[in-house]
């Protein structure tokens, strides 16, 4: 079953082309890495899947509906560059707000579950304005997963994390994989992407420069594709 389908997908920002007529299928239950140099269109693609932006032309569907539709938005969890947290609210309140906004049944119990998963139970009543980057990122991931979405989009989630926090996040992502969640991971870390993903797409200037969906990804092939995309970009 296909979780995300993009056809002739194009996104323009004025005269700048963010994505240039791309076709993409992401299988349900798979982990897809989206790689590419800065400005390749990785985050734009992720934001279109998340329903945060509309395509300039072409279509993007999540589980058979337009990605922008509210039912599609309910199926997708998004963990972006920024934490999306309110510094005046505590960790528990941030989670409770996300749970209420997304109409999570039994919100309080789900919040406590997510606090425990993120290892933040002891810091639950502290305002997030005083959190370290690692703590804020862990909470941000918990917020993104509050309604146990079928599809989880991660936009460079390892940025700013120390080794322990990174390992913890990898563990969490592995857990999601085992629970048949569809993961779409934007990253610059080719080795990590090859370790986590079973499909990969390398973007260059809004176009797909390389695809790999063979299951076990070969890090060296991906590295070469990534380097080629970056080199051509520099040239």
């Amino acid at each position, binding site marked *: 079953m296909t979780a995300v389908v993009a056809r002739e997908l194009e996104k323009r920002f004025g005269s700048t082309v963010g994505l240039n007529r791309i076709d993409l299928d992401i299988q349900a239950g798979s982990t897809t890495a989206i790689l590419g140099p800065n400005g390749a269109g990785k985050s734009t693609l992720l*934001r279109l899947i*998340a*329903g*945060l*932006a*509309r395509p300039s032309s072409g279509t993007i569907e999540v589980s058979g509906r337009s990605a922008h539709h*509210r*039912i599609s*938005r*309910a199926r*997708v969890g*998004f963990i*972006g*560059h*920024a*934490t*999306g*947290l*309110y*510094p*005046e*609210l505590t960790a528990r*309140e941030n989670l409770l*707000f*996300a749970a*209420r*906004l*997304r*109409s999570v049944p039994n919100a309080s119990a789900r919040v406590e579950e997510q606090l425990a998963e993120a290892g933040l139970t002891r810091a639950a009543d502290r*305002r997030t304005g005083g959190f370290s980057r690692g703590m804020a990122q862990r909470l941000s991931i918990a*917020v993104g997963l509050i309604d146990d979405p079928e599809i989880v989009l991660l936009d460079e989630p390892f940025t700013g994390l120390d080794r322990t926090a990174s390992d913890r996040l990898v563990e969490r992502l592995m857990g999601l994989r085992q629970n048949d969640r569809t993961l779409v991971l934007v990253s610059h870390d080719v080795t990590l992407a090859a370790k986590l993903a079973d499909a990969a797409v390398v973007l260059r200037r809004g176009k797909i420069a390389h695809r790999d969906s063979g299951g076990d990804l070969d890090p060296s092939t991906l590295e070469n594709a990534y380097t080629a995309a970056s080199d051509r970009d520099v040239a």
Partner: protein
Amino acid sequence: MNALLAVLWKDLLTEWRSRDRAIAMLLFSMLMVVIFHFSLPGGATTATRAYAPGLLWVAYVFAALLGLGRSFAIELENDAIEGLARAPVDRGWVLLGKTIANLLILGFVQAVTACIFALVFEMDLLPIALELIGVVALGSIGLCSVGTFFAAIAVRTRLREVMLPLLALPFYTPVLIAASRATNALFETGSVPFEPIQFLIVTDASYLIVSFILSDFVLDE
């Protein structure tokens, strides 16, 4: 409805903790009242009191613009606006939740400003307090509904502080005319004519409905 209540709860709690919007709005509107008092010839005379409704609404509208601008600026911090945009509901509920939060914060600022106003201009507003609350509430619904809508648009623009008044003020004009006419009649006769009230109700309803319908587009990138 859940989304509306969630946004309302979050906005009021955030404001209660920081108090930055209410204090800024309050200081601004109080300063305006004091300046009006000292700039008008003769201070609190019958002649200057004739200007009172207009002056009161000028203070209210600029305080509202100040607060409305901030209401979406706090969503930009840490890109929390993405969470709102991704809510799996009609985005109109999100916008309505913010509108009600803005209305309550503005209502608090308006109440304190009216007290200072009565004190400075030596006016007894107590006998007409209920009617005044009604007129101010109707006027404020118009200001906050269209103001919140445009604040959501302006927040993603480069010149958001300038953009919000530019977008909102033309739509504020009919509300302000009707609200100051009703307030004027209230101050002069102690009763409110139906015509401006009717106009305010129709304008408020139109602004709320149009904002709700178009809300799906304003939170997009």
